[in-house]
């Protein structure tokens, strides 16, 4: 080791330079990581004070009369302004209206199935019942944990994994997307529209397929540009507004005048691009035109494809409280009111009757919307 030091000292200028560069890079990286983590933690800690004030602390608390709901989020967690937030809204509603207690656990990017499994097990073994898993990523882990806790009721959003104690909350995203696709085609002046998907995964393919089918039902020769922001297993495309903005800018530049985004947290960038290009955009999951977070761009949000995860989560909890839980799949489609388009802002008032025609045809089965 001694000689190593002498060698280092005698190194050529290049190597020494590289060595320093390398060390600097590492230190910077570590510093950035630490600083970022601190900010995140500070924000999260601050938030958790207010959001979980009604819950008991610790898994060791004796089973109270109140129902203790455990909920495991997908990556992004509470505050993603999209999918997870919709689940959180349903849970919050249940806390106020059904007087249940809640405990929320968040996921880490890039974790293994085993780690997801332990998260669900932690909730189930801590006496939380029912336990809700948000997102199809929990599919395999939930299948295993549900077997171990036959007396606990589980629910999973977006996945068909089957067990006697699992309720599957599934959505017909393609049906809602069909309607906003039809709306885009009816409203487009250039005959050129766009679709921005967050991550190139089968779930998002359903949004794209429905959107394209809806647009083509109105105007068979319409030009549709499609782009996915990232490829799995890189799920960054659900949380990168800059990527969303670049992709949408490209579409507006290439002649599109309306862009639909199914990109979670990246969607904000699509709205910004639409505003800059004096075009229009279509929101997703929540009625994004009505969200305070998007108040600055609400005039470009023509409509939103609403996926009512909040309703599904609340329904499930209500059934649990009244002891009428339905195991197996519950499909939230147009018929059940699980997906829909929003009319906030009134931009669709002139075509609403046409869209409702399509809606009725889908509900009656006259139109079958492809899901891939």
């Amino acid at each position, binding site marked *: 080791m001694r000689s190593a*030091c002498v060698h*280092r000292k005698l*190194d050529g200028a290049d190597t020494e330079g590289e060595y320093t560069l390398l060390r600097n890079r590492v230190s910077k990286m570590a510093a950035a990581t630490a600083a970022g983590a601190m900010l995140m933690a500070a924000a999260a800690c601050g938030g958790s004070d207010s959001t979980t004030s009604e819950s008991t602390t610790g898994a060791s608390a004796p089973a109270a009369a109140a129902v203790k709901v455990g909920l495991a989020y997908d990556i992004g967690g509470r505050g993603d302004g999209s999918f997870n937030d919709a689940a959180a809204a349903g849970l919050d509603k249940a806390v106020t209206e059904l007087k249940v207690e809640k405990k929320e656990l968040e996921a880490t990017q890039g974790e293994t199935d085993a780690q997801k499994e332990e998260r669900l097990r932690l909730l189930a073994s801590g006496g939380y019942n029912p336990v809700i898993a948000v997102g199809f990523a929990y599919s395999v882990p939930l299948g295993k944990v549900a077997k171990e806790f036959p007396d606990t009721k589980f629910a999973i959003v977006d*996945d068909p994994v089957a067990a006697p104690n699992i309720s599957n909350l599934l959505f017909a995203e393609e049906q809602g997307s069909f309607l906003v696709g039809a709306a885009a085609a009816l409203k487009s002046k250039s005959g050129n529209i766009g679709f921005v998907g967050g991550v190139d995964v089968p779930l998002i393919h359903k949004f794209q397929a429905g959107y394209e089918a809806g647009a083509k039902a109105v105007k068979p020769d319409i030009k549709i540009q499609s782009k996915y922001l990232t490829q799995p297993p890189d799920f960054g495309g659900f949380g990168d507004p800059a990527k969303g903005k670049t992709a949408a800018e490209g579409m507006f530049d290439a002649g599109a005048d309306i862009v639909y985004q199914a990109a979670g947290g990246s969607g904000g960038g699509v709205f910004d691009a639409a505003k800059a290009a004096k075009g229009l955009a279509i929101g997703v999951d929540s009625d994004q035109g009505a969200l305070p977070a998007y108040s600055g761009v609400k005039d470009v949000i023509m409509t939103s494809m609403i996926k009512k995860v909040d309703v599904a989560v609340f329904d499930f909890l209500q059934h649990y409280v009244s002891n009428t839980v339905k195991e197996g799949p519950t499909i939230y489609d147009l018929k059940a009111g699980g997906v829909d388009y929003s009319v906030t802002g009134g931009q669709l008032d002139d075509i609403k009757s046409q869209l409702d025609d399509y809606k009725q045809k889908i509900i009656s089965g006259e139109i079958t919307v492809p899901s891939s």
Partner: protein
Amino acid sequence: MSTFVDRLLGRVKLSGWLALVAPLLAVLFAVVITSVVLLATGKAPLETFQALAQYGSQPRTMAVIVNTGTEYYISALAVAIGFRMNLFNIGVDGQYRLAAVVAAGVGGAALLPGVLNIILIVVVAVVVGALWAAIAGLLRVTRGVSEVISTIMLNSIATGIGSWLVTNHFGVLRGNELATKEIPGDSRVPGMALIPGTQLQVTGFIVLALVLGVAYYVLLNRTRFGFELRATGQSETAAVASGISVKKMIVITMVVSGVVAGLIGMPELLGASYKYSTNFPTGLGFTGIAIALLGRNNAVGMAIGALLWSFLDNSSDTLQLLDISKEIVAIMQGVIVLSVIIAYELVHRYRIVAEQRRVSRELATPQQAEGAAA
């Protein structure tokens, strides 16, 4: 003055002792910093660490920690091989993921039965990892492209290729999950019930990790290749002067690093999920960089680092039951790495100064030195 320097120099072993104490101090320092953050957010630090320790010491959690730690350790080894030669292989992440995709696709096709299929899968993973890493090595020696830049870019390309392979060739759609075909039951690597009190088995790949750890030590410290690798890392000019082909060493080192990187995904692929899906763990290559830094490229140090890292990662969920953000462990991890680097840098500088003083002292009293030589 000289007695003071003498005393310091007389404790060369103290440096070795310091080398051991430095990481411990770093961990302690991280605990202090984390406590401050916890206090600032109105949480009780003691309660937090107790909860971490309590959850982490349950048999079941211990098994999970060992399993995750095994992957972390292999990743750290892959990174460390490059580090020892001043090669910053950031591409371990892309190498293991691409290797896992191709291996999962080949393995899922079940071309061979039983154990033969396992061997085929591992060989494919190793070859893909090695080839992918070799690209960065070849770019460096032929075009002078920094491996830092090229491996980052190759990570991105690996993600794209992997996704294309799964979507267009290997993938089977099940629900909302797109994954390769499952590897058949007779070609899986069984776990071992090592930890009493839990049914959860420890991955069979822990044996591979241990073998790799020993091989790493032997290769670097007991072979000519290892000597040449370390020599090149310490001084390229000196290496050239002693007849070592630096270009050859760069390519070979990248390939060896890629070989080990190819194995990172194997515990998950052959021992846990049996397929490559959108849920396949990502970022293990970057965790490996942190652990290699933490363990100072030392085979044992990295093993401890991997377990510590895994403990923090796997125990963090329990904090959320106490309404403490799980990101608190990210702060700990960040501070640990930072303080280890700083601590070692201080030790390193101290050694250089000490060495300089020793040399100047010997030059000042040549007769003594001659006497010592005689």
